[in-house]
């Protein structure tokens, strides 16, 4: 087993990208994710890779599109305002079925907002942030170890399903240091990339595109994409359950909020309250089954987010019809990160 390291969440992402075979990175500086390009600008040249500090997030996502069209593993990272700029390219990648990993170490908004931890980009991430009706894989790490492991998973899922995959974190999981076991790249069996542009040689012409003008062509394309999303939902939903077996109330939270919620849940348990946690790890596909199964028994959910209510909509759509879903949210901004005591109070209020 590899030795334990002590690293920042953002660095863990960069390390995992390299372990996953990613040698191409394109980005534009923005707080709080700059550790990722800083790390990769140092390491990729040593590995014969390419690091480009692009002129904008628009350029970086399109460089990712181009690199990915040739079949290599490639990545970009940014934070909320930059991710907004990338939406055009993400839509084109989804349309052209291109893999590629996009990291959003999100910050608070709207607009320039602030740099504090935020979960206000949930809708943008899981509902198709750009035009045209599509989905991407969205993974929400809540520890440095998960920043690492889920980054490698993101590359595999992107290749397996030929679609962009996003890591959605924030400054809490991005900036904190924790022990990390730098696991080896998983031995996933991946499909042959027989669709990449390579210079046709004596073979057939290949085209990577999202324009479909023939009669019925685009509808068929969209239906095929939809089938893929259904397959993804059936196979790849991931979540963590903590102390749910006998729980009378289950907290739903993801990413950094789930960490604070976990502390509050442990405090509640010490006071004899039967409280658990259901933490979606994949935000898309959303772990609907987990919520449906859980709420056949436990009828009370308290959804907690760093926003005024986004994931709670998916929770409501997933739970048993007679389950109660409560919500507690803190919109992001300086000083708005809730304390465990504050969440404990909410737990008691709804218990």
């Amino acid at each position: 087993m590899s030795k334990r390291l002590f690293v920042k969440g953002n660095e863990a992402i960069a390390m995992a990208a390299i372990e996953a075979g990613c040698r191409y990175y394109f980005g534009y500086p923005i707080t709080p994710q700059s550790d990722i390009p800083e790390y990769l600008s140092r390491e990729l040249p040593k590995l014969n890779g390419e690091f480009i500090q692009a002129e904008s997030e628009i350029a970086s996502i399109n460089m990712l599109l181009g690199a990915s069209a040739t079949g290599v593993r490639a990545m970009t990272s940014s934070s909320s305002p930059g991710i907004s700029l990338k939406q055009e390219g993400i839509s084109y990648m989804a349309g052209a079925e291109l893999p590629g990993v996009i990291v959003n170490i999100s910050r608070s908004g709207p607009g320039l907002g602030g740099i504090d931890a935020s979960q206000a980009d949930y809708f943008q991430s899981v509902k198709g942030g750009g035009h045209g009706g599509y989905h991407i894989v969205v993974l929400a790490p809540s520890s440095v170890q998960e920043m690492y492991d889920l980054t490698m998973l993101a590359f595999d899922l992107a290749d397996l399903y030929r679609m962009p995959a996003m890591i959605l974190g924030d400054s809490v999981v991005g900036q904190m240091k924790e022990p990390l076991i730098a696991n080896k790249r998983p031995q996933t069996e991946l499909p042959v990339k027989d669709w990449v542009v390579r210079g046709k040689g004596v073979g057939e012409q290949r085209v990577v595109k999202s324009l479909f003008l023939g009669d019925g062509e685009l509808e068929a394309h969209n239906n095929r994409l939809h089938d893929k999303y259904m397959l993804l939902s059936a196979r790849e939903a991931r979540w963590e359950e903590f102390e749910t077996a006998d729980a009378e109330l289950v907290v739903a939270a993801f990413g950094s909020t789930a960490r604070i919620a976990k502390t509050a849940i442990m405090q509640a348990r010490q006071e004899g309250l039967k409280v658990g946690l259901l933490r979606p790890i994949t935000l898309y596909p959303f772990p609907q089954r987990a919520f449906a199964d859980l709420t056949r028994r436990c009828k009370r959910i308290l959804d907690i987010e760093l926003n005024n209510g986004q994931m709670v909509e998916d929770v409501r759509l997933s739970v048993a019809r007679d389950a109660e879903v409560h919500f507690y949210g803190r919109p992001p901004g300086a000083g708005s990160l809730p304390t465990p005591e504050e969440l404990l109070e909410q737990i008691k209020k709804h218990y």
Partner: protein
Amino acid sequence: MQQVFKRPVSLKDVQTHFCPGCHHGTIHRLVAEAMDEFGVQQRTIGVASVGCSVFLYGYFDIDVVEAPHGRAPAVATGVKRARPDSFVFTYQGDGDLAAIGTAEIIHAANRGEDITVIFVNNTTYGMTGGQMAPTTLVGQKTSTSPYGRNQAKDGAPIRMAELLTQLEGVAFAARVAVNNPRNLLDAKKQIKRAFRYQVEGKGFSFIEALSACPTNWGMNPIAANERVGGEMADYFKLGVYKDTAEF
């Protein structure tokens, strides 16, 4: 009998959708001939842009990636960095390259990406029905400049070849036209020279080709052709602006 004229192998044997008198088809042919002459067809990855040339893959028998509007130089950067052995060119209109894609073209050029850019300047947004472009001449009437382009409000037309020439990263820049046999032969020569830069790894090469859009200029093909050599070439001077290699 000796065959003296044939279809370039890089070009497909299909009818194009271009309007009568449009120069896109001629420029396509010159690009295909240059590809044939360097024998690069089999390792070429073309990057299509959004405009009347969006169907690049329908006419060239090469691998193609389609870029979002204006982003072709960024897409080409990703392609070329990931596959440095491939021959990469973008083919972009003036709305695409000189308006929405100005950041991408300037920075790809400034980085000196080892790619070739074919920039087709027809002083209008052809595909969307002839709106004002950044290259529309002062006084030119378009569907969104019904009183003629007004320099005080709209600025003067951008000369991209001259602009890019300023950048250290640009190795070769030329403006050509295909409106008469002499210009056409020179255009072919300059496109070949631009390709040679990439073939020999000598850096970023740029061709601006003046092009007729009879449909949106409201002219017949002959009058449109004459406009290219007339008021267009008066403002957008033909010539080689930068030529840094010794070959």
